[in-house]
């Protein structure tokens, strides 16, 4: 026999214990608490969430703290430098009235950054969500319903090859007026931009999701779901979607960045928001010409965009880990 330290214990009730259920003994907790616990352990995700929250709160609450109107011109105070430039160049034009400086028409950079953030974040998120919704819908349908696969994938090819600029111009011509009438100039444009970005950027998501669904569909639990009488849409909703969450998450983070940047390219082409309506992308684009003299005007929105994207990326990473029960268990 052996000299295992557990011997006595095993002898005492071994037969029963050997065949008894074993498994994690920790009491199960609520799912969301679990997710949160796991998420909290992810250092990157927490840092990302922190910065992301900071920026979000900044753009949401900013207007209450910094009440200057972003569109207010103050031509006498134009081309002010941020206050910190005084540290190394004492004769720079700085002032506490414009802590981050002002632009060539004397609009306050801080106020613009806040207002621009609101717009960019709103566009970024909605466009990204829209594109995710379309992409996931297309991908799942193509992967799940054999008959739809061919047509939907060809449709994806079509959208991939659509030239975005003419598409935009068509959309603007057709829908600007009704949208403006119903939602106001900014609201209408918002809807238009978000839609255009959404419908021209869902294709990669659709491709990836389709691939994953094709593989998942062959898994036994989908067959099992069918055998217990689950309807196809329920199968998609309960069994497929939760399992393709991780690639969707990746698309989401990349999609947010692309949406914010595409918006700026659009306003550059004159189909975006009214020209005096700031967004991060537009601030960045406008400031490129004066990048040498006023680096802060490119750097500040640039940092804002990058931080947001990075934040979301890390949050996505953390969420992916946290939402996966297999990893969460450990």
């Amino acid at each position: 026999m052996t000299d295992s330290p557990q011997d006595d214990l095993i002898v005492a009730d071994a037969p029963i214990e050997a065949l008894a259920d074993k498994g994690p003994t920790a009491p199960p907790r609520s799912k969301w608490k679990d997710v949160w616990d796991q998420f909290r352990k992810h250092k990157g995700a927490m840092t990302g969430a922190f910065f992301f929250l900071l920026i979000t709160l900044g753009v949401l609450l900013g207007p209450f703290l910094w009440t200057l109107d972003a569109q207010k011109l103050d031509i006498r105070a134009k081309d002010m430098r941020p206050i910190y430039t005084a540290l190394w160049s004492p004769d720079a034009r700085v002032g506490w009235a414009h802590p981050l400086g002002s632009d060539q028409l004397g609009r306050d950079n801080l106020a613009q950054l806040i207002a621009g953030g609101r717009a960019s974040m709103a566009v970024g998120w909605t466009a990204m969500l829209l594109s995710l919704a379309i992409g996931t819908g297309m991908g799942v349908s193509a992967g799940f319903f054999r008959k739809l696969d061919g047509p939907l994938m060809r449709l994806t090819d079509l959208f991939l090859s659509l030239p975005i600029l003419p598409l935009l111009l068509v959309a603007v011509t057709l829908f600007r007026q009704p949208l403006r009438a119903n939602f106001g100039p900014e609201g209408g444009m918002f809807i238009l931009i978000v839609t255009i970005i959404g419908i021209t950027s869902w294709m990669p998501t659709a491709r990836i999701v389709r691939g994953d669904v094709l593989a998942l569909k062959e898994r036994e639990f989908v067959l099992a779901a069918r055998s217990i009488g689950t309807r196809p849409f329920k199968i998609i909703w309960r069994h497929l979607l939760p399992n393709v969450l991780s690639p969707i998450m990746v698309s989401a983070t990349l999609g947010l960045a692309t949406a914010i940047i595409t918006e700026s390219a659009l306003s550059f082409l004159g189909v975006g928001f009214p020209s005096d309506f700031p967004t991060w992308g537009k601030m960045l684009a406008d400031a490129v010409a004066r990048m040498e003299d006023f680096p802060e005007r490119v750097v500040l929105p640039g940092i804002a965009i990058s931080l947001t994207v990075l934040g979301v990326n890390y949050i996505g990473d953390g969420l992916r880990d946290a939402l996966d029960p297999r990893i969460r268990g450990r």
Partner: protein
Amino acid sequence: MLDSAGPIARIEKLRVEFQTKDGPVAGVEDVSFDINPGETVCVVGESGSGKSVSSLALMRLIEYGGGTIAGGRILFDRARGGEIDLAAAKQDLMRTIRGNEIGMIFQEPMTALNPVFTVGRQLTEGLRVHRGMSRAQAEARALDLLQQVRIPEPERRLMQYPHELSGGMRQRVVIAMALACKPRLLIADEPTTALDVTIQAEILALMDRLKRETGTAVMFITHDMAVVAQMADRVVVMFRGNKVEEGPATQIFETPQHPYTRALLAAVPKLGEMTGKAYPEPMKLLGRDQADIMPIIGTDTPLLTVENLVTRFPVKGGLFRRTVANVHAVEDVSFTLNKGQTLSLVGESGCGKSTCGRSLLRLVEPDQGRVVLDGTDLMGLGPNRLRDARREMQMIFQDPFASLNPQMGLADQVAEPMRNFGTHSGSELMDRVAMLFDRVELPRSFMRRFPHELSGGQRQRIAIARALALSPKLIVADEAVSALDVSVQAQVLNLMMELQAEMGLSYLFISHDMAVVERVSHNVGVMYLGRIVELGPRAAVFENPQHAYTRALLKAVPVADPRQRKSEKDLNFKPIPSPIHPVGYTPAPNVYDEVAPGHFVLTSESGY
């Protein structure tokens, strides 16, 4: 041969830890044993008892899986250079030992081979690294190895990719790979668990022969006591990271000391145990209060009648994806299943058992035939009626992990069928789920868990609970216990039989494990290449097999008795012919001969 005096490897107080997010976890707590030259040491124990971890520690591969050897020594006697402690050796040194002096055969033949390199390339790699052979030399040796492991057409295999080989051939390639450099110690980690009986028998015989011919020491890891009985010189029993018993094979089987060993042996179904009994009955398990074991009689009223069922999978090809050939997966199958009884389908992998089961539920659309369940002809139903009909018939799938959605809570998974049919709702639904958990003997606290938090047996019980949720009349159990440990398997089987006795369920039990089939069935159908070659009452088929294939199959089953070893000579399996036939091909209908009442044997051509 056995010229070296001492053991070839000595494991002393081995402890292996894994770093997890909740701190270190011990995979192996305290294990010591020796392996002598030319000896086969079997390490047994249930899943998770640390068998694989010990073997990986021996190879020092455990580091790559996130583990560390936290204590103990692994002394290995090198061919040249005396004894060294592997636990402390440098990885560079290990590299010259791995594959060279210690070879390893892994658990999963399907994934152990790199899918993108040819068999030849993977076989020669080690030879070229350790033996410095040229490509041509290495290839010659590889060919030689393939011949040793008796792979048909070895020249062709060298050029093939792993997926082009059958599971058995793949496992033989893995064995050849491990043997390539003539290691002095061979570690075989469950080399046959994933294979079916016939191939398993072949592989075991092969390993036995190789050991005898080359004098290699073998550390054989398994949880299948029948295999142990066939292979072992000495047995080490492990339990939860500890060694609990060690001794010669016969001693372990005949006079087990430790309670765990005894429980384990009790749980092993043995072929022939049921001889003389007319009806199946639950197993007697150690340490359980089983009032008295009652045979399950069932009724004689037919529940399910299958007539001339044919299922074919089209093989598409050509420019316009026309069907060029068909896989004849199920060919003219007919049988009747009575209420409260079990009909088992047995046969080799790929013979069409699963397809047959799935066709009944129309999870796969059959091409022809009639399936009548309790008076309704399932073949004629539209999608909605079919869905309703599925309330009466449920399926338990082969792989308990794959058949549960990893992202869904267990309670939800069990509740899903009821939600689908709206049979229960609100608190009533939850009550019923709780009741089902009780029924399959799972604590209610598991309701909020996820599949990965359960052991295999528990998962399979969830699957059973889900199948029971709608109180069906028929359950198709497709290899429902194949993936489970013996002890757990016994529990699940007992559970299934209890349920049958209580609720009058009928099972279509699909398995390749003859011993299990013998225990649970009222009737047995033996399938070969899509056809049922022999069908009849269990006793008749097992005790008086008529068809040549049935006989071969029965002969291949390992017996959990070290005194009844099989030799390679006893086995003569022909490779299964291809079930693929061109489009116009019409197979001849099956003609049966009734040798005894209810015992049918196929007399027309079966391909065997």
